[in-house]
């Protein structure tokens, strides 16, 4: 019997020939990702009574959640993180302005095929787009990893999702993954390792693959993964300066489920308030009035996302009464978007450019909603109250759908503008 990606990568890390699903392993992860919550994690770390991190070279810290600090409390947290970084000698620290952790981590060479990455953020599965095993953990265990360099992991069951066909115009990775989450539900892949494969995935850019693995978290997945290929190697060239061993699932690996999707006739998809699996084709919510559009976040803040919005908004102007917030996912994305004129197109069309970071996605600052307001967002969560008021509404969609809706002031099919 063959082995799944998760079995093979975890077995290798544990120094075993093979492992069984359900087996508990103690392994040494290659990277530990933490963000603004490093402040609380540092507090937990001190409680353990250890003075020095077991291996500071695995630690990657990115300040992204509330940057620049929105008030004194956040500022004090950031200061605590900087002091901890200096004290422990952590080299991979990225301060305010570098971008969102899930964009910065791979950009700076901390993700590669076959790596095991754990992070104290639920969207850590994003890095599976590079062929890594990447999973979210909590802050207590992040502190424990700092102290010991080790973590216990249960070898997960696996799903294999085959995405085939050809993507219609103005239908993107976001629409594909929203459709899948609507089909499988918010708990459809609980604890599972989800392998994304098929001709559409092979044809996708790295940025699009990151949309799939990022949102695997929204169906409960432990991790999402895409097999590395020539695109992966090209993207990582100049970023990862050491050798790595690519890991592929065996053809006869045991899966809980293998599900095939043909997306050739897929319409743009929208998740309605207040759950990510409340998904309908955009045609069912056309005309819903919006107050705000948001293009950015760890899901859809990359260059191709900003370009898709600019393509729709170039030379036009957003509707009166609508705010359109644009947050590039990183400094690198921002610089490239400036160089290509994309920022100019968006700002000239009425968009408000915000600094790279998480922004209003988690309701802390930079565009929270008042009671009764509606935002259409490229983010990955629309939980009640997530973006401010509990009486506000968040719809999730692709960058093209958000741009088209900002243009008209109501939810709009991007194929019609």
């Amino acid at each position, binding site marked *: 019997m063959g082995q799944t990606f998760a079995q093979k990568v975890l077995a290798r890390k544990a120094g075993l020939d093979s492992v069984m699903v359900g087996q508990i392993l103690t392994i040494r992860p290659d990277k530990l990702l933490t963000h603004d919550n490093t402040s609380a994690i540092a507090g937990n770390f001190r409680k353990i009574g250890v003075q020095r991190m077991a291996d500071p070279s695995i630690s990657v810290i990115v300040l992204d959640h509330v940057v620049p600090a929105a008030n004194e409390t956040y500022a004090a947290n950031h200061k605590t993180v900087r002091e901890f970084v200096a004290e422990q000698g952590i080299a991979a620290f990225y301060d305010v302005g570098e971008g969102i952790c899930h964009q910065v981590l791979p950009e700076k060479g901390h993700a590669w095929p076959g790596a095991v990455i754990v992070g104290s953020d639920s969207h850590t599965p994003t890095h599976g787009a590079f062929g890594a095993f990447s999973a979210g953990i909590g802050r207590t265990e992040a502190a424990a990893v700092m102290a010991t360099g080790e973590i216990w992991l249960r070898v997960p069951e696996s799903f294999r999702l085959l995405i085939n066909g050809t993507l219609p115009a103005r239908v993107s990775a976001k629409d594909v993954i929203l459709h899948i989450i609507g089909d499988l539900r918010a708990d459809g892949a609980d604890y599972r390792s989800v392998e994304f494969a098929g001709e559409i995935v092979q044809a996708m850019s790295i940025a699009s693959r990151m949309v799939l693995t990022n949102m695997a978290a929204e169906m409960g997945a432990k991790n999402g993964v895409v097999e590395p290929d020539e695109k992966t190697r090209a993207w990582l060239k100049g970023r990862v300066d050491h050798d790595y061993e690519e890991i592929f699932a065996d053809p006869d690996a045991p899966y809980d489920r293998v599900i095939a999707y043909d997306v050739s006739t897929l319409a743009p998809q929208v998740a309605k308030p207040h759950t990510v699996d409340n998904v309908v084709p955009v045609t069912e919510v056309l005309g819903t009035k919006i107050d705000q559009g948001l293009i950015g976040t760890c899901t859809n803040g990359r260059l191709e996302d900003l370009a898709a919005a600019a393509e729709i908004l170039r030379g036009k102007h957003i509707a009166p009464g609508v705010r359109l917030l644009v947050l590039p996912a990183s400094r690198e994305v921002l610089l490239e978007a400036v160089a290509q004129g994309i920022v100019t197109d968006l700002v000239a069309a009425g968009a408000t450019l915000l600094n790279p970071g998480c922004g209003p996605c988690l*309701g802390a600052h930079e565009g929270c909603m008042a009671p009764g307001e509606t935002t259409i967002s490229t983010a990955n969560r629309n939980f009640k*109250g997530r973006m401010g008021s509990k009486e506000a509404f968040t719809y999730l969609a692709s960058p093209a759908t958000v741009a088209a809706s900002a243009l008209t002031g109501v939810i709009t099919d991007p194929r019609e503008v």
Partner: protein
Amino acid sequence: MKETTIQGRLWVLTEPDGALYDDIDTDMIFHNRYLHITDVAQMGQYALDNLKGWEDFAKKAQPGDIVMAGRNFGSGSSRQQAVDCFQALGISAIVAESFGAIYKRNAINSGLPLVTFPNLTAIAAQFENGATLAINLETGEAVLNDETRFQADPLSQVQMDIYQAGNLFAYGKTVL
């Protein structure tokens, strides 16, 4: 050794229409507006205050109580405060049909027993607020009001070891 059987008063988290709540996410359990709070003792008062119909849960809950919900309890963010807030209230266990993956890890590592009850939704009508539920964590055997028996999943060995030690840190000291 801690007792391996937990007994407590039950809170059955139901929607306004009486159905067992599924997909209770971490923002419903501990809303993002409280994330700046770092003192666990202060977290209990906000538990479930963004869950419709359960805004006053923290005022009603007593130490030792058991919380019951449907599928995918604790989905969403990795925030550990969504576990800490129940521990601050002294909640002794959470019973659900399934849990969010990171939530489950957080609870295990904090020593809060999460008991998975397969097909709970199908038998949910038998459980009422205020009933007494006893659960043997080692065998998964559950007894409602000293009468009706149910079979839940037992805790895994690592779950049990960390629970017995108190939490992940204490457990780490026992194996180092």
